[in-house]
């Protein structure tokens, strides 16, 4: 049984009659000790999925799910108080901008100890000195040099990389079973990115944590994750093992994302881009959400939303999944070439 199992997660904003679906029927599961990468453009619903999972979507946002269990507990019926006890202890999250995620009014030690006072062991809850010793130990675990001197610094006195390490220290303070890292390295410069990532994966291995890595850095996912979920406009469009998805993408969007990588454009004068934008509230197409931007889109794509099909290993949301050569399969014909009866979806 997976550690976290979500099915049919939907997050809506706006009015009841014409809601905007930021997340649309996402199914997701992760086992203990597994790293899953979630990739997609800005606005594809990656962060909102994580926030919904943490119970951080407030009115007017509405969260619905067919099922959402963590470690055997149903998250859809859990009370606020129980959720607070669970979130932060067993599920932790780190954000994109580490400096904005630390309260500017308090020192590093205060903020670390605050978490320990609520979620820590009995001894830590009672004893201030124990908490401080543990805070120091945590800073050492996240490889902050001269940790004792950093304890009493304020966030504005830290560098970005240092602040992200502090955030990681806060996140792992209570030995979470699941860590959600929302673009943990985007705000950092390249050398620090590698260090922080190495730190995250080391901690993940040591503690056998499940790690959800939300990012738009495909290289990062390729290096670290075992499985990948590609999201587009709030939907999962392709999921599967990293090697499979990246080597033979079956969804045109995954293919286009990979083709847009600078590494794949070295011999060309211009970088390849995906034309257009992720559809917003008012320009949502009727059929497949990618159809206005897809190079293979045909009349059926514009008319009919494809389901997420495939086995548990590899699933793809496309009427005409791509083959190993990157060409659409099934009954696909370019528009205008031939009109014929289509096979079953």
């Amino acid at each position, binding site marked *: 049984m997976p550690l976290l199992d979500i099915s049919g997660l939907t997050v809506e904003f706006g009015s009841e009659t014409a809601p905007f679906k930021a997340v649309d029927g996402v199914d997701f599961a992760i086992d203990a000790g597994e790293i899953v990468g979630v990739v997609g453009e800005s606005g594809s619903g990656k962060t909102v999925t994580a*926030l919904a999972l*943490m119970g*951080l979507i407030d*009115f007017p946002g509405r969260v619905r799910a067919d099922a959402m269990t963590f470690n055997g507990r149903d998250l859809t019926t859990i009370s606020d108080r129980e959720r*607070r*006890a669970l*979130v*932060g*202890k067993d599920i*932790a*999250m*780190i*954000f*994109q*901008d580490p400096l*904005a*995620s*630390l*309260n*500017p*009014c*308090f020192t590093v030690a205060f903020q670390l100890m*605050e*978490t320990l006072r*609520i*979620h820590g062991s009995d001894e830590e809850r009672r004893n201030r000195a124990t908490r401080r010793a543990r805070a120091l130990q945590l800073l050492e675990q996240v490889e902050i040099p001269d940790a004792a001197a950093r304890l009493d*610094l*304020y966030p504005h*006195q830290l560098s970005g990389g240092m602040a992200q390490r502090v*955030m990681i220290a*806060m996140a792992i303070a209570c030995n979470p079973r699941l860590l959600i890292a929302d673009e943990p390295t985007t705000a950092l410069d390249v050398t620090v990115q590698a260090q922080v990532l190495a730190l995250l994966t080391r901690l993940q291995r040591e503690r056998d944590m499940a790690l959800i890595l939300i990012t738009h850095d495909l290289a990062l996912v390729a290096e670290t994750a075992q499985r990948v979920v590609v999201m587009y406009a709030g939907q999962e469009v392709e999921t599967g093992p990293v090697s499979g998805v990246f080597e033979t993408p079956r969804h045109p969007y995954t293919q286009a994302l990979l083709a847009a990588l600078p590494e794949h454009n070295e011999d060309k004068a211009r970088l390849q881009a995906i034309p257009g934008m992720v559809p917003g509230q008012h320009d949502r197409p009727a059929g497949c959400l990618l159809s206005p931007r897809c190079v293979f889109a045909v009349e059926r794509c514009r008319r009919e939303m494809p389901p997420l099909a495939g086995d548990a290993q590899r699933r793809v949301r496309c009427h005409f999944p791509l083959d190993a050569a990157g060409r659409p399969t099934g009954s696909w014909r370019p528009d205008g070439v031939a009109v014929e009866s289509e096979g079953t979806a």
Partner: protein
Amino acid sequence: MPEAASALVAAPSAPPGPWREFWQSLSRSRGAMIGLGLVAALILIAIFADFVAPHPPNEQYRESFLTPPAWDKDGSMRFILGTDPVGRDILSRLIFGTRLSLMIGLISVAISLGLGVVLGLLAGYFRGLTETVIMRLMDVMLALPSLLLAIAVVAILGPGLANAMYAIAIVLLPHYVRLTRAAVIGEAGKEYVASSRIAGAGTMRLMFNTILPNCTAPLIVQATLGFSTAILDAAALGFLGLGAQPPTPEWGSMLASALEFIQRAPWVVTFPGLAILITVLAFNLMGDGLRDALDPRLKR
């Protein structure tokens, strides 16, 4: 020079602490330093009024009604700023009046700030209906001229120093509510609030321990400026006979009781007026300096 060398080595590499940085930017403004000096002097005078004042504030010297100040040819060094129509020493009354004025400022600002912060936090944190109810009520209060509102409140509660303070607190309230709400809305969307929620903080803790400390800078400034408004309004109420009642040595009522002598003995009216002016100016200068020092957007 071994001592100098070791001092160099021991020099702290850490950036200046928050207090030191605050002091550095505050001391750069001359106005703020003048204001701070005057306020400090006023506080000392208020605390040590019993020792500083040459006479008791309500002692009547029947032999010297309306004695002019010391530098006038008819004046004497016994009453440096002269006496009032019933023979009380004006300087002593002004000194004891400092105590009252600062107390009025402190108490009405404290009441107003306390209530205003709570209401503003509720409005800014919960939004929706709570916000609408609180903010529209504050808009109604702001729509009335402040002195008129204060007079109305005193008319309901009855004249007196304590009631005047409550009235002023009510009049000042909307400013704090609006300021807190605006700051809370700005802070509530930041990521550290979300990460605090993720760490398991409850609503009360988020409101008072996570968000509120980050909203203090504008509140400190408004409270300092509110001090001067409170003192001015208290004097106005006293002048209208709705605040402190005679023989309390309150600056506003001193002005009111000496009004008829403005032609014959101008000093009786001049000095209480000057005292009000200097106090209000001092607090305004200090508040301005604090704003420059605390608001990062105004920093060069």
